[in-house]
């Protein structure tokens, strides 16, 4: 049969192009548009070039927010990934116990983000909150509305509580996919529990852990709702992360130009980090060829 060669294939990809254009490219272009202009009124705009970018990049408050953001993501990743793996390993492998623990484990994931913030806001209060009251009763000075360290503890623990189950569920799925023969072979080979983890489970979990890491990084790097509800970014600016700073800029002060410039930088940072993580973890898998 003779092959027909024409450009009809473009018609088939057209719907995808259109939906991507409307969902991503056009909104993004709007942001780009704002980032290089000073909008003074509906019919009054001035092209300002890279001025907004320069302003945003030299903004001290933004630098601080970026540092806080990186610290926050690093801390919660360092806690949630190992903790999630540990929980997944401790869960029962099958039967009703497994189902029951999975349901209980997944509960925090089902709670809306602003409700999570509210829960911890009340939970952590020294007067009526159980956690806050108990910690204070133990003689530890804890008040998340006044003390930056208390506030950080609360925000981190809230995120760990909210999102470790996701890592645990992913790791659990990865663990269940390892055939029994591996464990049997390890038993025959006399491998210790640590060796089983290091040489069987961890390598086999690499794929799901990469996904968990990327998801958790992106989400934590863009965290907004929970700290906004819990601390409102305070005390002072101590828990103001990038999104919240951006919201203040765009919605609070209506500085659309700088906010748009900052959005683009923000987007590029997230993209860059994800790329670095992805490449690094892919290489861990490949480069150990000759060790």
């Amino acid at each position, binding site marked *: 049969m003779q092959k027909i060669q024409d450009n009809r294939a473009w018609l088939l990809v057209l719907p995808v192009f259109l939906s991507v254009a409307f969902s991503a490219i056009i909104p993004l272009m709007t942001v780009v548009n704002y980032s290089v202009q000073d909008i003074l009124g509906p019919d009054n705009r001035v092209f300002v070039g890279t001025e907004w970018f320069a302003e945003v990049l030299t903004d001290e408050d933004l630098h601080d927010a970026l540092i806080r953001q990186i610290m926050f993501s690093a801390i919660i990743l360092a806690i949630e990934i190992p903790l999630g793996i540990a929980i997944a390993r401790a869960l029962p492998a099958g039967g009703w116990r497994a189902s029951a623990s999975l349901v209980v484990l997944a509960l925090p994931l089902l709670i809306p983000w602003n409700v999570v913030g509210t829960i911890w806001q009340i939970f952590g209060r020294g007067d009526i909150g159980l956690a806050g009251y108990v910690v204070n009763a133990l003689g530890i000075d804890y008040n998340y509305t006044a003390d930056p360290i208390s506030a950080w503890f609360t925000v981190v623990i809230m995120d760990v509580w909210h999102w470790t189950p996701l890592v645990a569920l992913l790791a659990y799925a990865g663990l269940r996919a390892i*055939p029994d*023969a*591996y464990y*049997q*072979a390890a*038993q*025959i*080979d*006399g*491998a*210790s529990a640590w*060796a089983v983890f290091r*040489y*069987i489970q961890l*390598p*086999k979990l690499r794929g799901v852990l990469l996904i968990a890491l990327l998801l958790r990084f992106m989400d934590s790097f863009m965290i907004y709702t929970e700290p906004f509800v819990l601390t409102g970014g305070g005390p002072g600016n101590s828990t103001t992360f990038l999104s919240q700073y951006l919201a203040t800029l765009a919605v609070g002060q209506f500085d659309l130009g700088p906010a748009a410039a900052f959005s683009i930088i923000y987007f590029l940072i997230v993209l860059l980090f994800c790329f670095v993580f992805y490449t690094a973890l892919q290489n861990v898998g490949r480069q*150990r*060829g*000759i*060790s």
Partner: protein
Amino acid sequence: MARIDLVDLSHSYVADPRRREDYALSKLNMTWQDGGAYALLGPSGCGKTTLLNIISGLLKPTTGRVLFNGQDVTLLNPQQRNIAQVFQFPVIYDTMTVADNLAFPLRNRGWGAAETRKRVEEIAEILELTGDLKHRASGLSADAKQKISMGRGLVRPDVAAVLFDEPLTTIDQHLKWTLRRKLKQIHAQLKLSLIYVTHDQVEAMTFADQVVVMYGGEVVQMGSPQDLFEQPAHTFVGFFVGSPGMNLMPCTIEGGSAVVADTRIPLDPAAAQVAGRAGGKLTLGIRPEFVELAAPGTPDTVLGAVERVEDLGNYKIVSARLGQQLIMAKIGEDETIASDTVHLRFPPRWTRLYADDRALTGTGG
């Protein structure tokens, strides 16, 4: 290395076994001699792997004991039993090199670096993996991976036995022959006790000195390949071993003959006497190799209607009908079947009788 005894062994995967069908393995008593090369042959689901896992300690039997050199090891785990096992699908440690994979069982047992290296090189040499030693194991072909799995099983010189659970299933046909020969060579070289599970009779016969045939959770026969061929102790052995399998015909005994489909087949007088006394369902069995085609008029023959003749290159299979019963005979490449009927002779020397599927003693050979 050790002699392995299984005493009154049975196993069930059901929590509260009652009926015969609940058992994957039923009352088993047998001995595996030190340094032997055994094959465990049987169809899928007959309990081969269960038996293997009980010997290695991955599974605790429901009842009975496992003895290594007379010592009870039933409750010990595989590590304490010091046993090696190779699985059906290659198990390798992805992040390690081939050399590290092979060294893993030795390092876990505290071997020094120098002796580990020496032993790993020895095993790699035997399995022709020397060139890959420095490569990462996960990048290799399925064949090479299975060789690594086998290497890890063979690397420890002091194991009680090495158990193979259909290790060549995933291997390329051509390489199968090479590896099987290699295993035989390794057996001679390293003097390890080897137990080899398979459902492939050719594999079992070429590898083992002693073949253990399992059927429905029972060991139905243990013997040399020749025994299995000439003296099947159970109709299943007759049917399963050999290609095509034994002709099995329900029969009754009348006088000195067996009656199959209203046709009298003469028997060895002693055999006929034993069979006459035996109860149960009687079956007459003869291998296609031993069924003779006789000239018309020869005494003690039966007349069969030729159904078809298949030429398989170096021999032919004649299928003939005797009443309801189909009988196959293996004949030489040059013999021709001219008519629609053949005169079949069943030499009493090769005719076996079975009562309720088990061979009657003194009915042949």
